[in-house]
């Protein structure tokens, strides 16, 4: 194989595998995996909210009436619940975002990721406990 020189490998021509099938049981990941699942779901949720939110804000440019009409619908109780969910999602996403950033940039992060996940949940619960009563008050006042 004299022609094969150091470090330069021929492009592996991997045979095309037969269709693979690997459903089966759900992978039983732990904190790391489930936090990522939640992060992803909340990220997508916030993204779609943001799209809508930009569009409704654009109505500001159309006319106060149009804007207020839309904003008024946000004041429905059902929307209040949605709003609570949104805040919950953002809070989780943000807190877990900090956790991810610590894992990435702080040397001790990877070792403590599991602890940090539980911390995220604790802080999230505390923040939600601060926010929800008010929000519930707001929702109820609509009835």
């Amino acid at each position: 194989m004299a022609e094969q020189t150091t470090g330069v490998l021929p492009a592996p021509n991997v045979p095309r595998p037969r269709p693979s099938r690997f459903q089966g049981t759900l992978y039983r990941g732990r904190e790391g995996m489930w936090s990522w699942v939640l992060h992803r779901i909340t990220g997508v949720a916030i993204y779609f909210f943001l799209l809508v939110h930009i569009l409704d804000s654009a109505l500001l440019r159309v006319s106060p009436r149009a804007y207020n009409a839309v904003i008024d619908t946000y004041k429905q109780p059902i929307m209040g619940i949605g709003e609570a969910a949104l805040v919950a999602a953002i809070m989780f996403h943000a807190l877990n975002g900090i956790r991810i950033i610590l894992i990435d940039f702080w040397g001790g992060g990877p070792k403590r990721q599991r602890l940090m996940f539980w911390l995220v949940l604790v802080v999230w619960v505390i923040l939600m406990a601060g926010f929800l009563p008010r929000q519930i008050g707001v929702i109820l006042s609509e009835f």
Partner: protein
Amino acid sequence: MSDIPDSSTVPTKTVDGVHYHQHDVVIVGAGGAGMRAAIQAGPGASTAVISKLYPTRSHTGAAQGGMAAALANVEEDNWEWHTFDTVKGGDYLVDQDAAEILAKEAITAVLELENMGLPFNRTPEGKIDQRRFGGHTAEHGKNPVRRACYAADRTGHMILQTLYQNCVKLGINFFNEFYVLDLIMGEVDGQKRPAGVVAYELATGELHVFQGKAVIFATGGFGKIYKTTSNAHTLTGDGVGIIWRKGLPLEDMEFFQFHPTGLAGLGILLSEAARGEGAILRNSEGERFMERYAPTIKDLAPRDIVARCMRTEIREGRGAGPNKDYLYLDITHLSPEVIDAKLPDITEFARTYLGVEPYTEPVPVLPTAHYAMGGIPTNVKAEVLQDNDTVVPGLYAAGECACVSVHGSNRLGTNSLLDINVFGKRAGDNAVAYVQTADFVPLPDDAAEFVQGLIHQVSTATGTERISTLRRELQESMDTNAQVFRTAETLNQVTEVIGDLRERYKNISVQDKGKRFNTDLLEAIELGFLLDLAEVVIYSALSREESRGGHFREDFPKRDDEKWLVHTMAYLTGDAHSADAGDHIKLSTKPVVITNYQPMERKY
């Protein structure tokens, strides 16, 4: 499924479903010896490495303790002392010219591995660190010396990975999960020569014929003839068995090493490095019994001696546990930091498999079948011999499957990783030199016929015997009757068992009838090799009426240099399938090469 597919792993032709390949050098086995040979051969000749396992699954990766070389990095040492220790450790059955080469080339072998990237443990000055190991001494037996170069207790793992990494670097062609089942021999000018090998591709069930000018066997050991063994399930001695079936001789098969410290009941090895780092063997009374048997080097006596002492302790009622049938390896006096730094894996084994915490508890151990000193006879150029001194040009063997013989009747710890590197390299070098001038030996038209027949016969077998039952009976009988201590009586017993099993083997059944990944079929074929080899081991052991190294005959407890300072050579003759081993095995002897060291009594 080839590893680095390029034009050269594509068959040159396919006839009747059999794929043909052509390479200058064909290496069978991708363990330490095979890959070391490939690294030498690859740059100079078209090379194919055929392995029944992915290279990194080879059992070299299980080796723990170290690789000997008189680097003198931490203590005064030289290769001459190493040679002496090797010869004495092998109870003077070692070919001393080969031992000299082994010890001398050890130094470059280690440095080459370091240069290839092997992450050895380091001394405070940044040099390769060394530790003590059984039987390695300074000044011809005065006191233990630090000679084993190591990487924690993962030396073999690092060697295997480093060699594989360098094969990747060189772009070596691997054929992984290809089982070689036959060697094709041809004749040139009336002289036997290898023409190639036939392999069974596990993934597809198809056959491949590899034509090669030179063929190197590096298929490792055959510890699976025993039940309790440190060896992998895949170490079934296929390579040695193929050579045997070709009518080529096997050397010193009666010498099988029992490693003193296998996890009791399981056989998983706890490296001698533990004792090198200070671990102590104790009996049920907590006594350090090795002090009685080997006052100078105590627990670091060679393995054959320690294993026998352990069996003696148990026989005399000083075994531990409810059935008084195991002993203790005690490292509780070492600090957890030292243990973690130097013996992390083996302590983990004790925790995982026995639930014992080695920091605070002694670990139950028992001797476990470990290493085949015997195998395919070669000269110091790694060329395979067809009788006492005629080589088969172009056919090489290296590693545990070969018998050079640098280990004589008992291998010293750390000398095997050395052996695979020194003689693996020599096999590669000599094969490349050989293929420069040699031609391909023409393949017969029916090159794959024998294997086709074998596979057909086994896969259509619809008998009544289960492979696993036969294998278990063989292994159990070997464990009880061909152990550390043996007598004519026990050996005769196992001879009978083997004869019976060979008969029953003709009536096996294989359940898996598919073509893909048919491991059921392969286990049946592997059992065939195990039966053949066990028969040779026992037949040779019966004939050697003396005690030497790993072979201890209670009915002949003395070493007998007058009569038995010779290697045993076993040949297959006559009807291979006859029930009586005597009908088809012929034994002869081969002189031992003695240069500097005259046999002396072996005391430690």
